[in-house]
C-alpha cells in the first residue's frame, strides 16, 4: 500500500481506564481532534486525522476498557472497531507502574492480528517507585513495538509516532494462546463460524467469553456454535470461562515475570492519602465536604452566569420587539426562537460547572472513592455507588444530573438512575412551592408555636421527593429494568494531579454534546409550546381590547393612563390565553383536574410549566390577569386567594395547595429533562416512559392527597 495516496490508515488508541489514554490522545491530536457520537449510544467518538512521520493516519480514541468482552457499550465499541475496520495498528496505553492488566488487553488485541504498539505511560512515576521494565523482552514476547512515554509532559511522543509507523508496516501475525486439547477443539469449532476481520481463533475465544452479555450481537450461526460448545463443555464439567482467561493470564504473568521488576515504593503516596480520604471517620467527613462543594457550586455557583444569560435573552427579546414590525414573525422570533435558545443556553453554566468538578474528581482518582464510600447506602435501593453524584445533582437540576449518569458503567444501572432522578426536587420547583405556600398559608402560622408551617411543608416536599426517587429506582429495578443484581467491580486508581487541559476538553465535550443534541430538541419544543399558548388568536376580542386602549388614550393621561393600559394588557393576555390551544386543553382536562382540587386555569399553568417548572408562576400571572410576575408577587397571591371555582368555593385552600405541590414534586413537568434523557438513553422510549410513569404517579398522589384530605375535613 502506498503511503502517499488514498485513505488515511486507521490507528486505534486503546487502554484500561485511568492509564492516561485521554492525555495521550490529546497530546497526539492537539487541535485536530474531532468529537462526535457513536450511533445509538452515549459514548463520545474522538478521532483525529494526523501526519505520523509522513504517513497520513486517522487516530481513533477507543473508550477505556479492561478487556474486549462485550459487556458495556464502551467495550462493544472497542470490539466493533477491530472487528469491522481491520485497523492498521493499535496503540495500547499501559500504566507502567502496574502493567499486568493492561498487557492482558494488549494480548487480547494482538491475538486478532492487529499490530500493536505498547505505550508504557507514566514511566517517570514507575521509575521513581523503583519499577524497571525490559522493553526488549516485552517487544519480543508480545510481537509489539514498545515505547516508554510520559504523556502528561509530552515525553516520548515522537518515538510513539515512529513506532506506530513501524507497526503499520509489520505483517499481521496473530498471537496464539495455548490451551489443553479439549479447549483447543472448542475454540477451533467456534472459529469456523466467525465472520469478523482478523484471526478467527481470537474472535472464537472472545465470543465464548462474551456469550450472554447484553451488548452482544452475533450472527445466528456464530451464536449457535457458541451455545453448542458451551453446553458441551458444561456437560463435560469443564470451566470454559476460567480456562480461557487463565490461558491468557498465564502468558501475561510469564511476560511480566521476565520483563518487569516492580518497585517497592509503588502507590506510596496513594496509600498515605487513602489513610485519610477513606478513613472510617475522616473519610466520611471528606466525602460530606466534597459533596457539599458540588451541591453549593450547582445551587449558587452558576447563578451569576444564569442571571446574565437570562437578562441577555430579555434584552434580545426587547431588541426584536423594538426593531421589527408587529406580527406573527416578530412573536415567533422573540417568544419562540430567542426564548428557546435561552432555554437551552441557560443550562450551560450548571452543566459546565458539574462536569468540570466531575472531571476533576475522576482524573484525580477521588470519584472512584466516592462510589467506594457511599456504595453501601446506594446498594440498598438497587443502585450503584456511582449513582450518588447524579442523584445529588438532581436537587439542583435534572439536566446536568442526567448527563452525569455517564460515569456509571452498566447500561441498566445508568438507566435506572436516569429514570428515577427527575423525581429529586430540583431548584426550578422552588418558586412553585414558594408561591403556593405563601398563598395558602399565613406567613405567621406556626406548628407547636415553633416551626413555621411554610418551612414544614417545604421540608415535607423535599422528603417526598427523596422517598419517591429511591422508591422509583427500586421499582424500576424490579420491573422494566429487571436484571441481575447490580454489582460493584471497581478499580481504585492511584491519585494523580489532573491536567487542566484535559478537564477543559472533557467539560467542553459535554457542553457541546448538550447544545447540539438536546439543545435542538429543547428549542423545537419551546417553539411548539409557545404556539400552543399563543394560537389561535381571538380577532374580535383583540379588536375590542384595542378599542378600549384607544379610548383610554383619548380620555386619560399620565399615571392613570399607564395604569389603565397595564390593566387592559393583563386582561387581554388572560383572554388570549383562555382562547389559545393550551387554554382549550386546560378546559378540556378540567374534569380530570377537579378531583385534585384544580381548575382549568391551574391546568394551563401546568401546561405552560412544561417549558420549565418555574414558568408555572408566570403563566398563572397571565391566566389570572396580573401580567408579568414572579413567585414573590403579592397581587398574584391575592388573586389566587380570591379565585373561586364554578361552585363558588375557594380555589386555593391549604389542602388544594398541598395537592398541587405534591403534583409538582412528582410530575415530569420539564421538556428539557425529557430531551436530555432522549439524548442520553439513545431512544424516545425512555423519556416517554418517564413522562408516563411520573404523570400517573403525580396524578394519583395528588388525587389521594386531595380526596383523603377532603374526607378528613381539611378542605376548608
Amino acid at each position, binding site marked *: 500500500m502506498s503511503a502517499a495516496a488514498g485513505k488515511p490508515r486507521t490507528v486505534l488508541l486503546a487502554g484500561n481506564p485511568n492509564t492516561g489514554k485521554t492525555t495521550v490522545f490529546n497530546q497526539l491530536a492537539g487541535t485536530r481532534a474531532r468529537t462526535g457520537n457513536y450511533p445509538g449510544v452515549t459514548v463520545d467518538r474522538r478521532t483525529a486525522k494526523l501526519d505520523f512521520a509522513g504517513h497520513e493516519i486517522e487516530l481513533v480514541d477507543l473508550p477505556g476498557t479492561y478487556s474486549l468482552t462485550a459487556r458495556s457499550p464502551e467495550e462493544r465499541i472497542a470490539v466493533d472497531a477491530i472487528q469491522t475496520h481491520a485497523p492498521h495498528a493499535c496503540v495500547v496505553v499501559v500504566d507502567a507502574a502496574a502493567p499486568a492488566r493492561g498487557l492482558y488487553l494488549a494480548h487480547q488485541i494482538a491475538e486478532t492480528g492487529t499490530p500493536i504498539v505498547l505505550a508504557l505511560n507514566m514511566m517517570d512515576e514507575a521509575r521513581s517507585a523503583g519499577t524497571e521494565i525490559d522493553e526488549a523482552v516485552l517487544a519480543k514476547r508480545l510481537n509489539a513495538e514498545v515505547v516508554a512515554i510520559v504523556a502528561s509532559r509530552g515525553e516520548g511522543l515522537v518515538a510513539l509516532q515512529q513506532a506506530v509507523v513501524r507497526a503499520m508496516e509489520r505483517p499481521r501475525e496473530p498471537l496464539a494462546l495455548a490451551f489443553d486439547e479439549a479447549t483447543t477443539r472448542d475454540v477451533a469449532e467456534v472459529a469456523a463460524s466467525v465472520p469478523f476481520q482478523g484471526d478467527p481463533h481470537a474472535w472464537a475465544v472472545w465470543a465464548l*467469553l462474551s456469550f450472554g452479555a447484553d451488548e452482544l450481537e452475533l450472527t445466528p450461526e456464530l451464536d449457535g456454535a457458541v451455545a453448542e460448545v458451551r453446553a458441551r463443555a458444561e456437560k463435560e464439567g469443564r470451566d470454559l470461562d476460567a480456562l480461557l482467561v487463565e490461558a491468557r493470564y498465564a502468558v501475561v504473568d510469564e511476560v511480566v515475570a521476565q520483563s518487569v521488576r516492580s518497585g517497592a515504593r509503588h502507590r506510596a503516596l496513594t496509600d498515605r492519602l487513602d489513610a485519610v480520604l477513606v478513613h472510617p471517620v475522616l473519610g466520611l467527613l471528606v466525602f460530606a465536604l466534597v459533596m457539599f462543594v458540588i451541591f453549593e457550586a450547582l445551587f449558587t455557583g452558576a447563578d451569576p452566569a444564569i442571571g446574565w444569560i437570562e437578562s441577555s435573552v430579555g434584552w434580545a427579546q426587547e431588541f426584536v420587539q423594538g426593531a421589527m414590525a408587529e406580527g406573527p414573525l416578530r412573536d415567533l422570533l422573540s417568544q419562540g426562537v430567542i426564548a428557546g435558545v435561552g432555554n437551552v443556553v441557560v443550562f450551560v453554566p450548571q452543566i459546565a460547572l458539574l462536569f468540570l468538578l466531575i472531571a476533576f474528581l475522576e482524573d484525580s482518582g477521588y470519584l472512584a472513592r466516592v462510589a467506594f464510600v457511599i456504595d453501601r447506602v446506594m446498594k440498598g435501593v438497587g443502585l450503584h455507588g456511582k449513582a450518588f453524584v447524579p442523584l445529588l445533582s438532581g436537587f439542583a437540576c435534572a439536566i446536568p444530573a442526567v448527563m452525569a449518569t455517564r460515569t456509571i458503567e452498566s447500561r441498566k444501572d445508568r438507566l435506572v438512575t436516569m429514570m428515577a432522578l427527575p423525581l429529586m426536587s430540583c431548584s426550578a420547583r422552588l418558586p412553585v412551592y414558594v408561591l403556593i405556600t405563601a398563598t395558602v398559608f399565613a406567613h405567621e402560622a406556626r406548628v407547636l408555636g415553633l416551626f413555621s408551617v411554610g418551612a414544614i411543608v417545604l421540608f415535607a416536599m423535599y422528603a417526598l421527593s427523596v422517598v419517591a426517587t429511591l422508591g422509583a429506582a427500586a421499582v424500576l429495578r424490579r420491573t422494566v429494568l429487571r436484571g*441481575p443484581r447490580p454489582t460493584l467491580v471497581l*478499580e481504585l486508581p492511584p491519585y494523580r494531579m489532573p491536567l487542566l487541559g484535559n478537564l477543559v476538553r472533557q467539560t467542553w465535550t459535554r457542553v457541546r454534546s448538550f447544545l447540539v443534541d438536546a439543545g435542538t430538541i429543547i428549542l423545537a419544543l419551546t417553539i411548539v409550546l409557545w404556539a400552543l399558548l399563543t394560537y389561535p388568536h381571538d380577532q374580535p376580542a383583540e379588536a375590542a381590547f384595542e378599542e378600549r386602549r384607544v379610548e383610554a388614550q383619548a380620555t386619560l393621561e399620565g399615571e392613570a393612563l399607564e395604569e389603565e393600559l397595564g390593566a387592559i394588557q393583563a386582561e387581554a393576555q388572560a383572554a388570549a390565553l383562555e382562547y389559545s390551544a393550551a387554554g382549550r386543553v386546560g378546559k378540556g382536562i378540567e374534569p380530570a383536574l377537579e378531583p385534585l382540587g384544580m381548575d382549568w386555569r391551574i391546568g394551563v399553568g401546568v401546561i405552560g410549566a412544561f417549558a420549565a417548572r418555574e414558568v408555572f408562576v408566570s403563566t398563572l400571572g397571565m391566566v389570572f390577569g396580573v401580567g408579568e410576575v414572579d413567585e414573590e408577587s403579592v397581587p398574584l397571591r391575592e388573586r389566587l386567594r380570591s379565585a373561586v371555582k364554578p361552585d363558588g368555593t375557594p380555589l386555593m385552600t391549604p389542602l388544594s395547595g398541598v395537592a398541587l405541590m405534591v403534583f409538582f414534586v412528582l410530575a415530569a413537568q420539564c421538556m428539557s429533562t425529557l430531551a436530555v434523557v432522549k439524548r442520553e438513553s439513545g431512544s424516545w422510549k425512555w423519556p416517554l416512559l418517564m413522562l408516563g410513569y411520573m404523570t400517573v404517579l403525580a396524578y394519583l398522589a395528588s388525587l389521594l392527597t386531595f380526596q383523603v384530605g377532603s374526607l378528613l375535613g381539611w378542605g376548608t
Partner: protein
Amino acid sequence: MTEPLTLDRLPVGESRVVAAVGIPSGDRLVRCRLLEMGLLPGTEVRVVRRAPLGDPIELRLRGYALSLRREEAAAVSLRPTDRAEP
C-alpha cells in the same frame, strides 16, 4: 476442619492465594469480569481496608487496587499463601 475461608471474611491486612472463583449471585458475566480483572486461582490477594460503612472492601492484587462488595467477595475462596506454608 472449618469451611474454607472466603475473601469477604479475610481480615484487613492479611494476604491469601485465590483457590477458586465461584459465580457471584448466579451471574456468570460478573465472574468473567472478576477473572479478567486478574482475580484468578493462584493470584495473591490482600484486603487493604473496608469502606467507612463496612462495605465494600478494597483489595490489592497484581499491583493495583480493586473494590468489591462483600457478596461478590464471598464467591472467592482462599488458601494460605505459599510463603505462609510451613
